[in-house]
């Protein structure tokens, strides 16, 4: 059986979720591995969300927000970007491949780009293989 990764994606309400919606209404097929969670702004993505997703068994985490300068709340996406850099450093220290977490900007008109991103990210995670995080955290040695 081929490995089908579970990817948790956080999409901001104003751009990225609408972009993903556009991919759907435009009938663009893309990989069904994403479990999408709609949030109001990428600035709402607390590092806890990412850690919890990994801890509960996600193989990858995708975060999407408005392009720089386009945030509905002016600077939420910048906050997300700063946290993303910090989280990248942190997960590498925790022994997690940094490719498992990704931040991309998707606007409301970028349905095609969203579908391509979903396919490409799923492919990356497939190559990395299943995440061991859940098993390690649950096994006491």
């Amino acid at each position, binding site marked *: 059986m081929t490995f089908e990764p579970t990817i948790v994606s956080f999409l901001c309400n104003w751009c990225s979720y609408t972009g993903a919606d556009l991919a759907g209404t435009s009938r663009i097929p893309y990989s069904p591995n994403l479990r999408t969670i709609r949030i109001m702004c990428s600035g709402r993505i607390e590092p806890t969300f990412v850690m919890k997703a990994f801890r509960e068994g996600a193989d990858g985490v995708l975060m999407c927000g408005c392009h720089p300068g386009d945030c509905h709340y002016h600077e939420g996406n910048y906050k997300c970007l700063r946290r993303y850099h910090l989280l990248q450093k942190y997960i590498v220290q925790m022994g997690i491949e940094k490719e498992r977490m990704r931040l991309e900007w998707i606007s409301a008109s970028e349905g095609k780009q969203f579908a391509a991103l979903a396919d490409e990210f799923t492919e990356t995670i497939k190559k990395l293989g299943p995440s061991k995080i859940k098993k390690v955290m649950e096994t006491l*040695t």
Partner: protein
Amino acid sequence: MEKEKPKLNLAVYWGAACGGCCVSVLDVHEKLFDVVANANLVFWPIALDTKYSDVEAMPDGFIDVTLYNGAIRNSENEHIAKLLRQKTKVMVAYGSCAHLGGIPGLANFHTGKEIFERVYVSSESTVNKEKIYPQTSYKIPEGELTLPEFYNDVRTLGQVVDVDYYLPGCPPQTERLLEVFMAIVKKEELPPNGSVIGATDKGQCDECPRKRSDNKKIKQFKRPVEVIDDGETCFLEQGLICMGPATRCGCGYRCIEGNSPCRGCYGPPPGSPDPGSKMMSAIGTMVGSDDPEEIAKIVEQIEDPAGTFYRFSLPAAILRRKLIETTVS
């Protein structure tokens, strides 16, 4: 004559700890007489010569209050934690190590095997060509010698036994201990089981004596040696990592008053499940740039986010250890 009140039976034990918590109990100074007037110290390895067998001989629930300090690092820590739980009415996780794993918890960045290799073979001051490691059991003509088993994972006390109260701090402020102890003596109404006591529900920054603005813009993160502290401005605004935004209040600002940034020993405020995550969130707000390249550069200056933000709490974090291949069999 007033009938003498029955005394409480008090035990203090150290697991994987430095001894500072036991010393902090002694820091009650002359108030020790109040403690002794109200309590029998039935077990306290740092000060008394009570044996483990004496504890085993006590009936269940004999000890009224146990202050357990230290994390669970080896089989001895675990055994005594379980034994004391059985013998104790009110189990208090005393200090950062018992509360969240503490400094010994940082060993979760490595495996037990790596630690043994470093300590007994590769450290610069060690000569051990035969690579002899401590064994849990060794037979000699006179009989068998045993040592506790060294675990791969460091755990908090709460991950091993039921804990009634958590008293955070490295070490906990002695005044807080006295308040809690006297509350138990006077049978005052105690908070619900599992609560953190001896600390407030606020964050460090709420009552911090330093001057601070609400709109921090940090352009550069520095190490303490690189900054001449002006003695009054918020450490974060001076570019130093201070754990204040992600730390519970109650310590009395000992570090801040000593002109040193908060290290986070009191753990996260209520409602935040993960101390480091809260700190990462806070820093995301404070980095003073909107330029993607500059943001990356500023964040890069934070040398060791995992070790800094989880200095006292790695085993209690959502990701409680580093992923290492050998940890999954």
